[in-house]
């Protein structure tokens, strides 16, 4: 049985009257990349800060590496790396000095530290910028520096809190590759984001949060398989008589037909060749239609079905 690296049990955190984390439970196993997915304000960062014992919480138990996490648990903190949502670097230090400074909070041996800092510089692709001050770096490079400062000491557990916010696609891919490499080298990763594509691409398991609650949990495939909706077909059409709408509803596996402007959205709960069946039916009815396309379900659909709202709302 794989070891639980993080165990959160029944966590409750209130900000005065507002319930930020609502009886949240979670177990993260060694070697996992766990995605914590939820819209802004869903309680992801609050949960992370409670896990790190930076925030006081009202109720619940948090164990990391099998031991209760407390604000003074230095030996536990020594094995954790944190990459903040906000860039946390010192403006008056160079790229190299920033990484060295934060690495030095964990690693006392100077030679070992130098080695680790060099590795972090290499991994994040900052070799050409080591003498630059953070203010001279682009947004993407700054994010990479932020990551380098959090991972240089080679922690066993790394928490990435929305590390790709406001990052260009090239840098984003580089960051995601770096995270995969760290995981391959043995680090357990917690990755919070409101970008479902990233989470889906990167994470071996996903926890969906909303209003501080764990609303769904599983792999991307298992979460999508839990949906009734397996395929959404969108047809551009100017006019569609009501009897044709009813005809579409009668097609096998179609369970919902809705009009949205000049589009008809048809949802299917399974089956194959649904697109062919629908096009054939429309042609039989002499309906003029424009573009037709099919979409497979996404995590946003999972979120929509569970909470009744879009992930990006």
């Amino acid at each position: 049985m794989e070891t639980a690296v993080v165990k959160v049990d029944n966590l409750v955190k209130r900000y005065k009257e507002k319930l930020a984390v609502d009886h949240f439970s979670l177990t993260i196993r060694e070697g996992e990349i766990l995605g914590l997915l939820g819209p802004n304000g869903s309680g992801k960062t609050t949960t992370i800060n409670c896990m790190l014992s930076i925030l006081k919480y009202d109720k619940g138990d948090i164990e990391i590496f099998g031991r209760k996490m407390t604000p003074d648990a230095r030996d536990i903190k020594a094995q954790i790396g944190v990459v903040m949502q906000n860039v946390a670097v010192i403006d008056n230090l160079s790229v190299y000095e920033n990484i060295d400074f934060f690495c030095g909070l964990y690693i006392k041996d100077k030679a070992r530290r130098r080695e680790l800092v060099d590795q972090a510089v290499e991994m994040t692709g900052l070799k050409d910028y080591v003498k630059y001050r953070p203010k001279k770096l682009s947004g993407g490079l700054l994010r990479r520096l932020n990551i380098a400062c959090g991972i240089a000491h080679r922690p066993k557990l790394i928490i990435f809190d929305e590390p790709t916010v406001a990052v260009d696609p090239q840098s984003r891919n580089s960051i995601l590759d770096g995270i995969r490499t760290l995981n391959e080298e043995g680090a357990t990763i917690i990755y919070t984001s409101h970008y479902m594509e990233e989470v889906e691409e990167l994470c071996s398991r996903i926890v969906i949060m909303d209003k501080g609650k764990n609303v769904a949990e599983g792999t991307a495939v298992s979460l999508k398989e839990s949906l009734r909706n397996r395929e959404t077909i969108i047809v551009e059409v100017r006019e569609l008589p009501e009897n044709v709408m009813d005809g579409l509803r009668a097609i096998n596996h179609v369970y919902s037909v809705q009009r949205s402007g000049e589009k008809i959205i048809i949802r299917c709960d399974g089956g194959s060749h649904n697109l062919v069946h629908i096009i054939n039916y429309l042609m039989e009815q002499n309906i003029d239609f424009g573009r037709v396309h099919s979409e497979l379900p996404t995590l946003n659909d999972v979120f929509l079905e569970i909470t009744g709202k879009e992930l990006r709302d």
Partner: protein
Amino acid sequence: MFLHLLIYKFRQILRTRWVLGWTLLFPLILATAFYAGFGSIIKEESAGGMDPVPVALASQDADSPFSQMIRELSKKDAGQDQIFELTAADDQQARALLEDGRVTGIYYDNGEEDPGLTVAETGMNQTMLSEFLKIYINNYTVIKENAEAAAEGAADPRQAGRLAQEMAEKTQQILSEEDAVEPVKFREDPIAPDMQFFFALIAMASLFSSWMSTIFMESISADKSAQGLRFECSPASKFQAVAASAISGIIIQFAANLVLVLYIEHVLGLPFGTPFPFVLLVTTLGGGVGICSGMVISCITGSSESLNVAIPLAFTMICSFLSGLMVSGIRETIELHAPVINRINPAAVLSDALCQAGTYGVDSRYWTDVLILVIMVAVCLVLTSIRLSRRNYDNI
């Protein structure tokens, strides 16, 4: 770990230009401006020793011992330093002269009672007039009693032995009452009164270091910045970080004060009148108070960036103002009416220590000021430690 933190705190501050500007350059510029304003006056006063103090004598008995003594000490060719610049006047004229600022004080003498003194404000010259009068009255009392006893003894030869004994005892008793007879001892070449502006300036420069602390504290507290959050996620000791910050800040402030003191004394040529180590001791403690008070301020202000700038600035300027940076004699006025303010205002304590040492030499008052500064540093460190002992927050 401590050394690692210390090195990086140094680098962090030495590369923060605006802090260095306020800590080092601004005091140098202000010192130059002060020098342009009254540097030549200070130099003249320092070179020529003490100028005669202008004083009015409203005497009803021109032949009284006191009036004669004042006249004697006002002569330019008396074979000794001229102490007073005398204007003989009646009561009304003397008051007019005092109000116009043409005399520092008015001595009243009716030839029967003890002479009196009226001054319009506080200052070194006024203190000198007051001390002179005190010494005169005490000495005169001793001489008069001795003379009366001698006269009594002469009239009755049988009592002569007993009276001689009593006279000797009484004289000894009066002379042993330290406060009554011991005059204030000025240094041989006391500093010019206007040097107080430069002392207040050094106090201001020292307190500006409170800004450095807000930068330090920001980078180690999760509720203040992202860097602070990163720091608190690490296993690093917060107390080591505070100690490293305080030491690096004090060393930087020490260097800045050293430059300022050397600039004032050797470039501008204005003497402090105190051995260099004593000046440095006080300025270093002043820097310590600045750094440590900045830490307390930072603990109080929380995460507000504007308050972290505004409060240290306001704290520094208010303390400096009350220590006499902008208005001459304000510290002395506070000393008369609310001395406790001067004891708790670090700028006033620092100015007072330098002023005392420069005027009277390194005496108990100087060491009292040093002790007060040490207590201030200790209190600030204890408050900061209590506040920083927590490592988790209700909200960040």
